[in-house]
């Protein structure tokens, strides 16, 4: 029985052997008192560990360690958490609904701001174009005038800005804000330094009241006014003085003949 190993002795002491293996170790022990001592040592270690800690297993289990109670508490916790989640979702819903309802009050941005933003945006997009900067060129200015006037349902003349050093490049029709007829005309002018300005014209707003605004938007200067016939925004990146000069020329020419224009002439 030379294949009795230390591990087998330990297993024997731990009661982990059965059948032939156990018998083999038992037989080995009768012939080897040292091994028997070894095993009794293991067993005494086991006994000591049992004596030290086994009594804990016989103690009454505290209430907080009752599996049923823990499961019930967990259920309540989940229910509460679900309740809170429902409440949170409802609060968010109420907030969204209320926000939507008071939206017209909060959305205080006046139409003029929207028109200026549209004008500046259109300016930025098309002044960068070379071959397609305009839809109809200045060489066909008569057609341009008729076409845009018809589309905007107003009489739109092409301002002459030669006095300010600008000549007409051409114009195009753009989609616009629904409040201002849904369409817009953009006229583009250029000077000898290839500086470009655009004029963004729409039909009048429903209230037809006059307004007047100078704004810097997105790096561009914008001069906006509205009257009973049209709204107009002059956009460019010239220095402020030059922009004012050009804007006043446009204003003069586009409001000429308007009955109400005189009051706002600058």
């Amino acid at each position, binding site marked *: 029985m030379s294949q009795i190993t230390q*591990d087998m*002795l*330990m297993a024997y002491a731990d009661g982990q052997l059965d059948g032939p293996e156990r018998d083999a170790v038992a037989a080995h022990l009768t012939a080897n008192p040292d091994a028997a001592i070894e095993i009794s040592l293991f067993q005494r270690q086991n006994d*000591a560990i049992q004596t030290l*800690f*086994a009594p804990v297993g016989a103690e009454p*289990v505290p209430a907080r360690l009752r*599996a049923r109670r823990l499961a019930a508490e*967990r259920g309540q916790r989940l229910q509460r958490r679900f309740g809170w989640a429902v409440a949170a979702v409802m609060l968010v819903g109420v907030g969204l609904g209320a926000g939507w309802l008071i939206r017209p009050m909060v959305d205080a941005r006046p139409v003029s701001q929207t028109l200026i933003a549209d004008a500046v945006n259109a300016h930025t997009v098309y002044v960068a174009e070379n071959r397609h900067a305009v839809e109809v060129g200045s060489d066909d200015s008569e057609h341009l005038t008729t076409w845009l006037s018809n589309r905007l349902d107003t009489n739109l003349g092409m301002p002459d800005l030669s006095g300010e050093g600008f000549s007409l490049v051409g114009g195009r029709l753009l989609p616009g804000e629904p409040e201002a007829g849904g369409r817009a005309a953009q006229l583009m002018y250029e000077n000898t330094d290839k500086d470009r300005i655009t004029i963004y014209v729409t039909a009048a707003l429903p209230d037809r009241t006059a307004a007047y605004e100078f704004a810097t938007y997105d790096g561009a200067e914008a001069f906006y006014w509205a009257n009973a016939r049209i709204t107009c925004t002059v956009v460019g990146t010239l220095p402020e003085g030059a922009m004012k000069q050009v804007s006043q020329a446009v204003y003069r020419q586009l409001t000429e003949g308007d009955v109400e224009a005189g009051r706002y002439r600058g």
Partner: protein
Amino acid sequence: MSDFLDQVEACVPALRRYARALTRNADLADDLVQDCLERAISRRGLFRPNGPIRAWLYTILLNIHRNGLRAARRHGETVDLDSVPEPSTPASQPGHLALAEMVRAIDTLPLEQKEALLLVALEGLAYQEAADILAVPLGTLMSRLARARASLRVATGTPAEPHLRTVK
């Protein structure tokens, strides 16, 4: 599910015993068992392996214990051994090792040896089951047990020469 809770409930005394021996602190041990039960209850059905519930509970308990020790090490909250109350030690009986010495010797074992030794010597688990709980091969478990027992022998002042060497 009540069947599941019954089975868990039946394991609680053994879990408390094992946790107490691991931590040597009654409150810490019961906290450990409570965490273990809560985790087991929250994971029933979803994560429970097919094996016996008891083994699964020991695995959960050991994981929580190790994580707790890791966190304690990170935060530097070590518990002084002397401040931990000793379990009541009956006067040493003939044939028993000095129990106080034994407690101290077990406390100083490396955790992996202590986990293995207590699963086998205290909880009476089969080697293979203990190896599965600790997620180590059977051979690893055996060598941990052998090293633990050798340390206990030295620490408890009962030196003995190993007469038989493992034949490989």
